[in-house]
């Protein structure tokens, strides 16, 4: 059901294209949505100008999570950068490690052993499930359904237990380093992971029954937050946001990296392009990830080294060059642009997080004409993680 705005309330457009908003007229109110708000996945804020309960203008403010990684990495040697990249995106840290390692490997010529590719893929998929579980909790929570978040956080915790026994840490794994992965799977890991995947299956079923086949959720999300397929290129939209608008692009399928070319899957695409469709695409993505993980566990070679022989990392110099490595994370296209200059330090590392394009100009465009009560759901449905916007 599409929301029909009452155009008589709207401010006129001035000659230079900006809106003629007279804050003293009593017609408009400025509200801050954020930076601490249950309706955002992280720390960012939107400065809203509302007329009644309808937004006429929104300005996104970021910067609450700027830690200056790109500048920090210029002072650290290549191996020293490896422990800090995972912190760039907090809820799905492994992608940073993978993209950074792959960029270094490409520019320096290090060849990663086969088994390491499989373990890396497994970790990325596990991370993807975690990220989606957090999203589902957030999406339901934004519309007032607290119970979904409780369930998904619990299953996410079980998956974090798997990470803990594999990598040695729960959130910042620091496990994928240039050359391979740090260690092999522990004894019995495959069985325990399978047990966790069964839990994921179970919670997905519950989430579907309680959240998706839910009159309130449907009423509030179907037809809301429409992304026009034409915007996909203009605003650089990638990932489930684009796929829910009908643009069938999944980096794992189109530019297969790691072992995705040996796995059997089809990207999840839909056409509704509203909050409900995006949530549904992500839900089906989780099911696909679970299936991919089962394939990986079955097809992984049983033995083999997991780490290449590195030169002395204390004085590792990489000749001048630049590259861009991309991958499909849970939110869209994640990429590392790495420039080296022949010294021991990277010249420039630029992290392209998918939320960079989703949460800024796109959100500012989408938020106009929405009702205040829909803003939280809208923001979460874009699945933005602010840490990757300002790094």
């Amino acid at each position: 059901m599409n929301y029909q705005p009452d155009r008589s309330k709207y401010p006129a457009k001035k000659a230079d294209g900006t809106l003629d908003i007279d804050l003293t007229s009593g017609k408009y109110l400025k509200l801050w949505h954020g930076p601490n708000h249950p309706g955002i996945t992280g720390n960012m804020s939107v400065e809203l100008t509302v007329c009644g309960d309808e937004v006429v203008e929104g300005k996104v403010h970021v910067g609450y999570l700027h830690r200056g990684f790109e500048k920090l990495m210029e002072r650290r040697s290549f191996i020293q950068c490896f422990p800090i990249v995972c912190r760039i995106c907090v809820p799905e840290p492994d992608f940073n490690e993978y993209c950074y390692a792959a960029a270094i490997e490409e520019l320096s010529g290090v060849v990663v052993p086969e088994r390491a590719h499989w373990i890396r893929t497994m970790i990325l998929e596990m991370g993807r499930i975690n990220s989606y579980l957090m999203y589902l909790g957030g999406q339901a929570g934004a519309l007032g359904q607290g119970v979904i978040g409780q369930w998904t956080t619990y299953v996410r915790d079980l998956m974090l237990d798997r990470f803990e026994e594999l990598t040695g840490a729960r959130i910042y794994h620091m496990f994928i380093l240039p050359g391979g992965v740090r260690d092999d799977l522990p004894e019995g890991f495959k069985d325990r992971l399978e047990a966790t995947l069964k839990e994921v299956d179970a919670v997905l079923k519950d989430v579907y029954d309680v959240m998706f086949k839910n009159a309130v959720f449907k009423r509030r999300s179907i037809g809301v937050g429409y992304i026009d397929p034409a915007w996909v290129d203009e605003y650089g939209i990638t990932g489930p946001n684009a796929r829910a608008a009908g643009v069938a692009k999944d980096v794992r399928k189109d530019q297969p990296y790691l072992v995705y070319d040996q796995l059997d899957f089809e990207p999840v695409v839909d056409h509704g392009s509203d909050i409900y469709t995006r949530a549904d695409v992500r839900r089906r993505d989780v099911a696909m990830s679970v299936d991919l993980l089962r394939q990986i566990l079955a097809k992984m070679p049983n033995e083999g080294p997991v780490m290449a022989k590195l030169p002395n990392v204390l004085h590792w110099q990489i000749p001048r060059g630049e590259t861009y490595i991309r991958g499909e994370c849970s939110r869209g296209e994640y990429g590392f642009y790495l420039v080296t200059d022949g010294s021991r330090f990277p010249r420039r590392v630029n992290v392209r997080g998918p939320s960079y394009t989703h949460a800024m100009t796109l959100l500012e465009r989408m938020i106009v004409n929405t009702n205040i009560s829909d803003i939280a759901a809208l923001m979460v449905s874009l699945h933005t993680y602010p840490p990757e916007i300002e790094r």
Partner: protein
Amino acid sequence: MHKLYENLGKIIPLGEMTLQRANLAFITLDRRYLRSALHHLRDVEGYSHLVLLTAVDWLEEDVFQLTYLLSNRTADMDVGLRVMLPRENASMDSIHDIWPTAATYQRELREMFGIDFPGSPRVNEEFILEGWQEIPPYRRDFDTKKYSEENFAHREGRVTKDPASHMKELLYPDRGQ
């Protein structure tokens, strides 16, 4: 990739191309031809997705390198356009009319590198930093260590010894060297 270089080269003069992978190439070109190149790539060659716009500070060569990374979603190819700008009073034409999302990248470059994009929406507004007084921080001449030492408290009691010097002090202090 070479075909693309050829085709693009017919319209505008191009600098060198670096073929990084089969599906990724970097082409250097002069700033005057950037917008034409972008239009050609987007409308004719199908590079409709602007992946990123970032800058690299080559302090020793006194230039900023702007990298416009474009992607052809159907053919799954990427091309990076490199534009060199002098570091002094760096400014470049905005491309927010071609890709609205470029406004965010340009805002960040203005704040972090000091590269101006006249006409880009909200380009002079603070983006990530708040109340920043120093030079744009992503520039190579901004010394983060010095900034940190001047502005933040040090933990007292740090002392570290170099193994070789320590052993010399203890075991053979009077030998020259």
